[in-house]
């Protein structure tokens, strides 16, 4: 019998695993995808190979490349971008670590902006602050360096009168360098293209390669915990695997990749007449063998799509019907600016600069390689630009950008792609409302060996008024910034569902009527079952990129688990955390042979 089984080694799961391992618990971390080792040799930055969402090594699929990817019933024009494997989607993420907008929490004094007041976090922003600081130190989070593209973005922001935010908290409309979970460049990093000079230790931190979304294996030669981007694969997992070596009380976790969980097992004999989580059943994706193991506590962290799926396939209670409901996705959009001069839009951290708008969301300047970039220009809900508008009204396709929004294809795509070096883009990240209609449910048509697959339902045009208004506001702001920075052509895409940020599909909340988790992230109806991924978030964090908040919350959840089930005292705020780049961790990682 384990103390704790954590399902999913993505953004949230490894945080709980590491915190509990540090406290000396016996933790089993199950991950459905592969564990990417020896990435100096085994990882490439080809968009068509490892960057490929269908066949690449961070695809949402089993580790055997000859097996097909995991299937979801999507049923609408949408792109779902989550990654399987140790590190989960943080393998592909940009590492942006803004704190949530404070207005997304209960007890917020108000700043004149409107938030999703019906679905606030059930505790205050101030309560989460010590956990933010803990995670920021552990990852660690650092202020992003500047390259040509960032300088251009700041210039545009200043030109439209946005002030600079030189703090970690979002208070007013403002721009700033991103707070990124990326080690900043040192030595030769950022100063040369010569790969011989970019090896660790001559180069440390971010080498400006621009391939964040494919996965970070740089600088080459760096120990696993000193790779630039702090995916959990590079930060929390190496710590969890070596907890016995750097923590006096610590116990190393057991990490099991290729272990796809089928269901959570429960006992009916709990004190409160509720079912109690007692273990997990999984299937080895390589051999097909099935296993079951028991634990005192189970933590579900399989991501916002698979967590509700596992819940529903386990036939766990769902009395208010909110399991899977209330998915937020930040109603993303894309605005591209083309400039006369080269702007090096594909160099450096994928997202080094941002602007925040309380109650509205935020803007991230984003770099992509040519294939992803072409994709982003062809992705639209407004039809093919200049050909048809897909039922969109005139009002919704025109704005401060040039011409109508729509898919850029054919001759025009070729023209814009021909100016690839002269372009930079802004990702619109909307503060969207929790709505019942946006949800994950089980498919009644198709299943795989883990049971019915997830069906994703997301209204695009029929979002709440506030969501739609926020999105328009942000798309127009993006166009203003790009124009003010000197863009000669500005294109707005009007993306359909781009699911990179997925939150709140198993939300915690104040009200029992519309939430699955209580204020401790424990399930309301199954004792000993916690949720620790993005799905546990109460809402879309005011449009802030969600992972830091998930990780802070997961740290708090780990403490609650220790207090409730193992009689321990809280530790956050009582001492300083150890950074994942601390020498003691590096030594532990090297001595354990983690590559």
């Amino acid at each position, binding site marked *: 019998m384990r103390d704790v089984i954590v399902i999913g080694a993505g953004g949230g799961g490894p945080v709980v695993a590491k915190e509990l391992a540090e406290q000396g618990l016996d933790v089993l971390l199950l991950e459905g995808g592969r564990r990417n080792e020896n990435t100096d040799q085994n990882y490439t930055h080809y968009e068509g190979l490892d960057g490929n969402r269908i066949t690449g090594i961070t695809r949402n699929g089993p580790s055997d490349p000859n097996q097909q990817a995991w299937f979801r019933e999507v049923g609408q024009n949408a792109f779902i971008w989550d990654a399987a494997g140790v590190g989960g989607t943080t393998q592909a993420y940009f590492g942006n670590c803004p704190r949530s907008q404070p207005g997304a929490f209960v007890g917020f004094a108000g700043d004149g902006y409107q938030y999703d007041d019906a679905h606030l976090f059930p505790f205050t922003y101030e309560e989460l602050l010590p956990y933010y600081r803990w995670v920021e130190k552990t990852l660690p989070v650092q202020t992003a360096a500047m390259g040509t593209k960032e300088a251009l973005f700041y210039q545009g922001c200043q030109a439209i009168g946005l002030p600079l935010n030189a703090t970690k908290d979002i208070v007013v409309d403002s721009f700033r360098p991103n707070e990124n979970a990326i080690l900043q460049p040192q030595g030769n990093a950022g100063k040369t293209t010569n790969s011989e000079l970019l090896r660790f230790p001559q180069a440390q931190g971010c080498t400006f390669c621009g391939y964040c979304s494919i996965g970070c294996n740089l600088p080459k030669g760096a120990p696993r915990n000193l790779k630039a981007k702090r995916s959990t694969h590079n930060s929390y997992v190496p710590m969890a695997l070596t907890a016995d070596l750097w923590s006096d009380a610590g116990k190393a976790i057991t990490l099991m990749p290729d272990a796809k969980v089928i269901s959570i097992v429960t006992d009916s004999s709990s004190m409160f007449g509720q079912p109690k989580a007692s273990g997990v059943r999984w299937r080895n994706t390589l051999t097909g063998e099935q296993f079951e193991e028991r634990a005192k506590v189970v933590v579900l962290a399989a991501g916002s799509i698979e967590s509700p799926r596992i819940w529903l396939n386990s036939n766990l209670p769902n009395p208010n019907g909110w399991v899977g409901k209330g998915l937020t996705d930040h109603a993303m959009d894309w605005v591209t600016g083309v400039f006369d001069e080269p702007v090096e839009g594909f160099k*450096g951290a994928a997202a080094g600069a941002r602007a925040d708008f309380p109650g509205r969301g935020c803007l991230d300047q984003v770099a992509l390689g040519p294939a992803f970039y072409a994709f982003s220009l062809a992705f639209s809900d407004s039809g093919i630009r200049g050909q048809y508008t897909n*039922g969109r009204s005139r009002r919704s396709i025109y704005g401060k950008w040039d011409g109508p929004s729509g898919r850029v294809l054919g001759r025009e795509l070729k023209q814009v792609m021909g100016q690839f070096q002269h372009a930079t883009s802004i990702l619109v990240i909307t503060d969207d409302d929790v709505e019942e209609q946006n949800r994950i449910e089980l498919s009644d048509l198709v299943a795989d060996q883990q049971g019915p697959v997830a069906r994703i339902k997301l209204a695009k045009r029929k979002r709440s008024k506030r969501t739609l208004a926020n999105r328009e506001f942000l798309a127009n702001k993006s166009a203003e910034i790009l124009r003010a920075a000197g863009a000669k052509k500005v294109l707005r895409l009007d993306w359909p569902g781009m699911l990179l940020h997925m939150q709140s599909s198993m939300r915690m909340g104040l009200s029992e009527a519309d939430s699955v988790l209580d204020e401790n992230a424990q399930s309301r109806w199954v004792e000993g079952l916690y949720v620790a991924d993005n799905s546990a978030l109460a809402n879309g964090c005011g449009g802030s990129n969600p992972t830091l908040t998930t990780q802070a919350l997961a740290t708090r959840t780990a403490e609650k688990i220790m207090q409730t089930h193992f009689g321990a005292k809280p530790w956050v705020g009582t001492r300083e955390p150890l950074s994942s780049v601390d020498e003691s961790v590096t030594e532990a990682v090297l001595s354990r042979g983690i590559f």
Partner: protein
Amino acid sequence: MQKLILSSELLQQMRGIELTSMSRRNFLILSGLFGALAPTGVLAKGSKALPDLESVDWAEVLRGFSVDTLNGLAAFAVPGLDPFSKRQKLTVQGFGGVDNGAGPFMSVALDISAPFDPNLSLLLITALAAMRDRIIARIFKYHGRAGVIGKFQYQHQKEMLDRVDQAFFNWLSSSAPKQGLPLTLFSATLLNLISAVINPRSVKQGFFQGFASLSWRQKARVFMLLEAKPEKLVKLIWGDTQSPVGRLIVGNLRFLPGALLQLACSASYVEPPLLIDFTDLSLIARPPGWDFAGYQIDDTGPRLKPVDGWDDFMGYFEGRTEVKDA
């Protein structure tokens, strides 16, 4: 092996799909599947002899058929000077998606994106084949011509079609299509069927049939139709949206057109696998897509590779390397 399991309801309904011989024949013609056999030579022109279909390598025929359609799509997304771009009457100087190998790239990507179920190909194609006779008649009436189907009026022609039909569906329901094709074949068939709706003249034999034979504007219209109201389209063409099969088709129609367009664009700029030397993961030559986009790679070393870093570090905004709580 990761497997897809179709619900029993779905399978039951699939078995219940009544395909009249008329609708099966029409489907074969309109989808371009019949025409796809032309290059094999089994359908000798003017011959009244029934074709020998034993020798047909369906996997090969259908892959060729699908890739042709997908190349038509690649030329639509990123036109070049290739024959597919010429055919659509929109060529643009420089490389195009077809030159970058987008067609075959898409075919592989599509097929591996859906776990294999021996029933899936059969189901999707059968569902497409259940196209209403009424709509077929209307297509041709609308265009005011007897249409291609009219040419298949003689008994021996019908028999020939029935043979092809039988051989094709036998192959589809056997385990042979395991080597992929589930989504590629569906996508190609779908695009060609809608192309027939847009322009009946697109129904012909050999190369440049179906979608690949349309003009750039007509291709845009195919997507306009596909994107507009999938329920309406499915109801009109297949007469059913609520049953499991109907829902599956509607769902696919909502998802696939966009996915196809986006995939065509990224496949036009990705490094084609053919240019990668897998022994050391270097590039044999600069991918045309990269060249055209002016995308830079590390060419300082002996072999071409994506860079390990750029020299674009300019310091920190206002020199600030750290910020504190507000």
